[in-house]
Structures are given as C-alpha cells and as structure tokens.
C-alpha cells in the first residue's frame, strides 16, 4: 500500500469509527449492551458492598446549610396537610410480621441516631449535613421483617415518587428514616416530616416526603430508575 492510499484508508476508518460512535448512543443494539453492563455492574457493586463500610464526612469540611440543594417532582412543594389527609404516619408493611403505622412521636421514641455524613448526588456534587433519625434496621426489628424480603420500596406523597432498594443497603447502619437535619426539624424543602437518608446510595434513591416503607420479595423500580438512571445507584 502506498502512503497516500494508506493515509486515506486510515483517515476513512477513523471517520467511520467516529460516525459509528456518534450514532451509537441512539441504536437499540447498543442499548442492550448497556443494559447488560448495568446488570453486571450491579453484581460487582453488590459484591463490593459491606455493612461495615462507613461514610465519614471530612471534619474540616463545612455543612452545606442553606446551600443544600432540594427538589421535588410535584408542581409545588409537597406539604402534608393534616386537615385534608389526617395526621401523618409512616406505614411499614409488606413482608413483615407486624405491619405498623408509626406517628412522628413513635419514631422519636425509637433509638435516635445522629450522623454527620455526605450526600452524593448523581450529578456529581456532594453536600454534608447532620441527620437525625431512626436506623431503618432498628425499625425492621420492630416490625419483624420476614427472611424472604430482599427489597424495600420507599414511597412518598410527592406525586408518585418512590425508589426501591436492595435490602442490604437498606439495613446499612447509616441508612436512616430521618426527621431532623442540622439540629432542626426536617424542613419542607428537604422532605418533611420524614425521609430516607443514607450516604450508601445516590441522592435520588433517598426518597423524601416518606409515607410508606414496603418490604418486598423483588425490586419495584423507582421514579428515576424507571427513567433510565441506574436502579442500584450505590456509592
């Protein structure tokens, strides 16, 4: 092959590769490969997972405070209106021996955990806050979770927002049903009256405006997971 032929062939194959790459993100075959990779990655992530792995927010780092981002999916900020919906309570049911409704006071009577941890957003930022609440693993002991429960769905009154988790991450010692933030009552911007907070999952997995915790035999997708974000979303 002479030089000119060779260069044009090289240039052509590079261009072809590039064009293929540009069309790639829309093609169905590549979507299948990506789905397979997500499944394999979840396997890797679940193998890596350890209850004993803890998040430690840097002691020199500042609390996010007012800069702590908040979002909701309803048109307006979801506020629990007692006059319309009655007193708020957290329903814990599904594969449990004693399905229970916990009022906020009931939750406060359970052992309180206070932790200064990171929040890892899928977008790439992190924010530190002090969270107060009940360990979900403590709550699980109260209701008696059955052994066949492999997943947990966290549901909300923010439209149909929910996210389901693997039970291992849900039982992590830093996974809280949080009702306090930065030594105040949890505010409406951050999921009042109670929300899930855990550094072991990306932010979108941490359902706010919590109403229901359901223990399930299989996964139940989620608001963002159903729109194409990874279901596992672990850190």
């Amino acid at each position, binding site marked *: 092959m002479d030089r000119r032929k060779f260069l044009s062939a090289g240039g052509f194959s590079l261009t072809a590769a590039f064009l293929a790459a540009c069309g790639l993100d829309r093609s169905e075959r590549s979507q299948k490969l990506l789905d397979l990779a997500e499944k394999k990655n979840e396997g890797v992530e679940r193998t890596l997972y350890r209850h004993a792995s803890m998040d430690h927010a840097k002691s020199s780092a500042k609390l996010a405070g007012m800069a702590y981002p908040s979002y909701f999916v309803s048109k307006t900020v979801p506020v629990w209106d007692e006059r319309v919906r009655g007193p708020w309570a957290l329903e814990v049911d599904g594969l449990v021996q004693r399905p229970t409704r916990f009022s906020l006071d009931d939750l406060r009577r359970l052992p309180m955990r206070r932790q200064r941890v990171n929040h890892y957003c899928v977008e*790439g930022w992190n924010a530190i806050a002090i969270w107060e609440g009940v360990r979900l693993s403590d709550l699980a002991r109260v209701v008696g979770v059955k052994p066949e429960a492999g997943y947990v769905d966290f549901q909300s009154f923010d439209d149909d927002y929910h996210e389901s988790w693997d039970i291992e991450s849900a039982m992590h010692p830093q996974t809280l049903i949080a009702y306090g933030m930065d030594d105040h009552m949890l505010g409406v911007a951050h999921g009042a009256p109670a929300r899930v907070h855990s550094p072991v999952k990306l932010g979108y997995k941490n359902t706010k405006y919590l109403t229901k915790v359901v223990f399930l035999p299989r996964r139940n997708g989620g608001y963002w997971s159903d729109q194409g974000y990874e279901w596992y979303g672990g850190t």
Partner: protein
Amino acid sequence: MTGTTATATGPAPRVRLRHHWIVRVTHWVNAVALTLMVGSGLRIFNAYPAFARKGESFCCWPWEHKPIPDALTFGGWLGGARHWHFALMWVLVVNGLIYLAFIYLHGEWRDLVPRRGDARDALEMIKFYLFVRPSHPMQGKHNAMQKTTYFLLPILAIVQVLTGLAIWKPVQLAWITALFGGFVWARYWHFMTMVALIVLSFVHIFMVFAVDPYSIQSIVTGGYREDLSPEARNARPFYHLLPRWRDRAAEEE
C-alpha cells in the same frame, strides 16, 4: 503478516514488522474507547460542571459552573452518559491489562522503561528539533521523549482507574477516596488526569503527522519502512514543509 521477510534478491528488508498485532488491536480499541470515555465523562461533568462541595468554594479551578460545549460530549444525557461510562470502563481496563500483560511477556517493555541517560537523550532530541543539533539522534525504536510519553500513559491510566473508583464508590471504597484527599479532590484528579491524557494524546497525534506519518502504517498493518523513519529522513516536525531548512541540515552533515 505482510512484508516481514526479505526477498531472496533484495539486500535488506525494507518493510519490517514494528508492532505486534496485539499492540495494534489494543491501540485502536484504546483510541476509540478512550475518546468515548472522555465524551461521556464530560457529559457527566456537565451535570455539575464544578468541583466545590455544596456550601464551599473550590480553590483550584477557574471555570467553576462553566459547562463543556455539548458537541464535545457523548451519551446524550446524564443517565445515558453514565451507562456508557460504566460499560466502557471495563473495555478500557481489560484492553489495558491485555496490552500490559503482552508487553511484559513479549519483552516490549524494554523499549519503554525509563533508563539512565534518558534525560540526556531527550535533551539531544530537543536540540535537534531546535536546529541546534544538525542530525537526528539514534535512540532505537522510540526516542527518549516518546519513551517517556508511552511509559507515562499506562501510569496515568492506572491513576485514572483509581480516581474513577474513588468517585464511583466513595463509601464502599472509602480508603481509595481518602487516598486522593476525599471525594471532591478525587473528582478533581479524575478530571485533571483526563486533561493530561488528552494533552499527551494530542501531542502524540501531532507528532505522528508532523514527524513520522509513515508510522501510521505500522500501527495498522504492522509494517514500517525503516528508510522512511525520522532518523533516515532527518525529520523535524513538518520537515517536509520546510525544504530550505532540510537542505541546510543536510549540508551541515
């Protein structure tokens, strides 16, 4: 394999096998996968084109909150880019391991490891490119500056894998995250290592076209014409576009 044997009548073989097929395949897989990793990585970056932890400012990035132009990104949206990034990372890692295992077992690492005298050899190359030295130094398969680059690339790749793990699993692999100074810094080093990889890649591509375009053949078919090597042609960057300088260099010899 083409052109590896001398004909019975010819004097010396003109086209010699320069790169084993494993090196050639891993090179091109790397070129495509790395491009897509950079594109999808930039798309992910654009979801939060800054480094500061919320409530803080960040010292060492002058373009906080300035996104990368969409045209340079790949994956379409944050979720899509993340899927691409987390799928292709395996391609790059496996490909890189095949390459490293091959050059270790096959001996090519000898052409790449730093040796005493490399600094002096690199200086000779710089002198040559600056017309201080008339003739191209004879430094073997790769000159000292190439060698350093090709040695640096796998090291940067390893740093890139580690910083990537640090921001993918900041809790489960917290010890790696801590190694890089925490999540914010690990994310910063993941970005800066990408910048270093891009810079070295562009220098590499520039030098291929400006000094040794015939080497493109050797990374595709494997064959390399020694009589067209930069040493044989006494080639400086763009030497073929600078006829007068070439003549003067030839005269000086």
